[in-house]
């Protein structure tokens, strides 16, 4: 074969099949996820947390929806119909069909006191004839309001106090920390009792008591985190760029401790719920005719031997709420801290 003259091949016969320059190889293909998108993706993988989130969503929806759609008036007394057992339409299992054992005999209580045929008390009634289910909805609402307030207090007082203390440092920090120590030295119960000498018992008094001490843990955690982040080089860089202290706190420190803040908030919610339940149980919390889960528990507990459902129902609801908040907080902690899991 004769030598080919390659220079004679026309240009058009060549085709550019691949070309990569340096700039192109520097490009990153994966989509850019923000921190919260990434955390949400991780949280979705955690079954317990997702289920908890759904349950809490449902409970919230029902508890607040019940303001308008309550099956019965939760505060309306009807002494005639007192202490009725649960009766659920269409279910004839003993314990849920309106019958109880009286001296070894199954008796239809509803018939006995003359409840109309089409009236059902799904969870029965209490000793004053109020519908337990409606009262539980009302109590759950109180618990959720307390939870919400606890979260707000944590986020406002706690975070602000911690940020200022950590950012200022030095003398200011020392003084602020001593104040915290004094506050946290007073037991919650004592604060509550002190408030009761001035205010009437009720949800507002509980909130005031929480405002005194409820945010202390959050303030401490935020301060510690702030001290840690304050010395990071990106904060120094912001300072040398001329950023003000407030902007540094809001733009650099807060976003970087947000996960810790959220997790701490989630853990403080069940504590607050329990605090309210406890106060109401010992009679320092809400007062009748208002209902709270703690109060329902305390009423049910007195009649537990005879009408166990009066205690079971609120106990289960309270436990479910507490467990769900804890599981969700747990899941969030893992989701926010990729190093801990997955």
């Amino acid at each position: 074969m004769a030598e080919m003259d390659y220079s004679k091949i026309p240009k058009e016969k060549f085709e550019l099949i691949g070309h990569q320059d340096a700039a192109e190889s520097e490009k990153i293909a994966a989509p850019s996820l923000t921190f919260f998108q990434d955390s949400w993706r991780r949280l979705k993988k955690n079954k317990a947390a997702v289920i908890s989130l759904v349950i809490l969503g449902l409970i919230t929806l029902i508890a607040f929806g019940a303001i308008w759609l309550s099956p019965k008036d939760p505060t309306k007394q009807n002494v005639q119909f007192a202490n009725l057992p649960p009766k659920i339409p269409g279910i004839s299992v003993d314990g849920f069909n309106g019958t109880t054992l009286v001296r070894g005999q199954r008796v239809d209580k509803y018939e006995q006191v003359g409840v109309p045929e089409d009236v059902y008390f799904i969870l029965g009634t209490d000793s004053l004839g109020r519908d337990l289910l409606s009262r539980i909805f009302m109590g759950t609402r109180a618990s959720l309001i307390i939870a919400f307030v606890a979260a707000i207090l944590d986020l406002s007082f706690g975070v602000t106090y911690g940020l200022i203390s950590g950012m200022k440092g030095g003398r200011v920090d020392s003084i602020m920390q001593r104040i915290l120590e004094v506050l946290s030295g007073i037991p919650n119960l004592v604060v509550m009792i002190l408030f009761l000498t001035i205010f009437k018992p009720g949800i507002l008094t509980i909130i005031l008591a929480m405002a005194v001490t409820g945010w202390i843990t959050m303030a401490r955690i935020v301060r510690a985190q702030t001290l840690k982040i304050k010395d990071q080089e990106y904060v120094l860089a912001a300072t040398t760029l001329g950023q003000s202290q407030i902007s540094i706190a809001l733009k650099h420190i807060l976003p970087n401790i947000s996960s810790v803040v959220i997790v701490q908030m989630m853990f403080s919610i069940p504590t607050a719920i329990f605090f309210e339940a406890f106060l109401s149980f010992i009679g320092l919390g809400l007062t009748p005719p208002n209902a709270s889960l703690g109060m329902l528990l305390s009423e049910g507990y007195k009649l537990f031997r005879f009408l166990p459902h009066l205690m079971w129902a609120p106990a289960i609801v309270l436990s479910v709420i507490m467990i769900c908040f804890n599981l969700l907080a747990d899941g969030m902690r893992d989701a926010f801290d990729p190093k801990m899991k997955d």
Partner: protein
Amino acid sequence: MVADKTQEKIILDVENLKQYFNEGQRDEVRAVDGISFQIFEGETFGLVGESGCGKSTTGRSIIRLYHPTAGKIEFDGEDVSKIKRRADMEHFRRDVQMIYQDPYASLNPRMKVRDIIAEGIDIHHLATDVDDRNQQVNDLLELVGLDRSHGTRYPHEFSGGQRQRIGIARALAMQPKFIICDEPISALDVSIQAQVVNLLMELQQKKKLTYLFIAHDLSMVKYISDRIGVMYYGKLVEVGKSEEIYNFGVHPYTESLLSAIPLPDPEHERTRRRIVYKPAVNDGAERELREISEGHFVYCSEEEVPVFQKKLADKKAQTEKVEV
């Protein structure tokens, strides 16, 4: 050097700077203990010394992250610690910038690269509108060798070298005159180190920057610096032209540092002996930086000056002999 001083403008003048932490307490740390040096406009001044000797602290005192315990820092003829007026302070913040040691800690992980770079632009209102801001950021990204599409990403998506480039872009956004490079390459892979150093040198040419280049590796500093200061436990022990220090360093601590540098020469490596530095016992003599030859300062007492001068002459004579 004497001629230089009249020609070149001193941009930074540090005089007897002292920076103590926890002063007066039991755990007092004298991180910087009375150092003086000058940096001329347009040059690179290398600051070397082992870990913990106070290099970063020096840089941070200069840029007013700390309040010096004593001493004077003059930038562009103005006493830095006396800046009170807001406008003057803003001016200073724009003129002096810093590149940090740890590329993983120096970028806020919750901010997009574009916002990181534009932080200074936003603070000082250097952009007229959003388009101008984006344009400036894109130009900066390209200037440091990154792609403009990188602006919408988060720092964790980048390698150490790329992050360091972002840090450089952030500093450059302020159009500074003077940049303190606090070991900008010590956390990087060796192959990336050269890239970043070359970028810094290129930028110096383009933007007429002055650098204070901090490092603990004398061979790298020699490559980039015009003059070098050797630091030991909060004190400068030797200052001079980079070639001079590298070839004829006379202070025992400098000799110890030099003896630690490996050379790609098997003959040399076989005979290389690490000199361990033993600090001289305190004999009560008053020591300070004294000029032993033109532009070459050594930390010593008055009586030691001739000793070091002789040592320097000997060293120079020796190398000349070898060359002949």
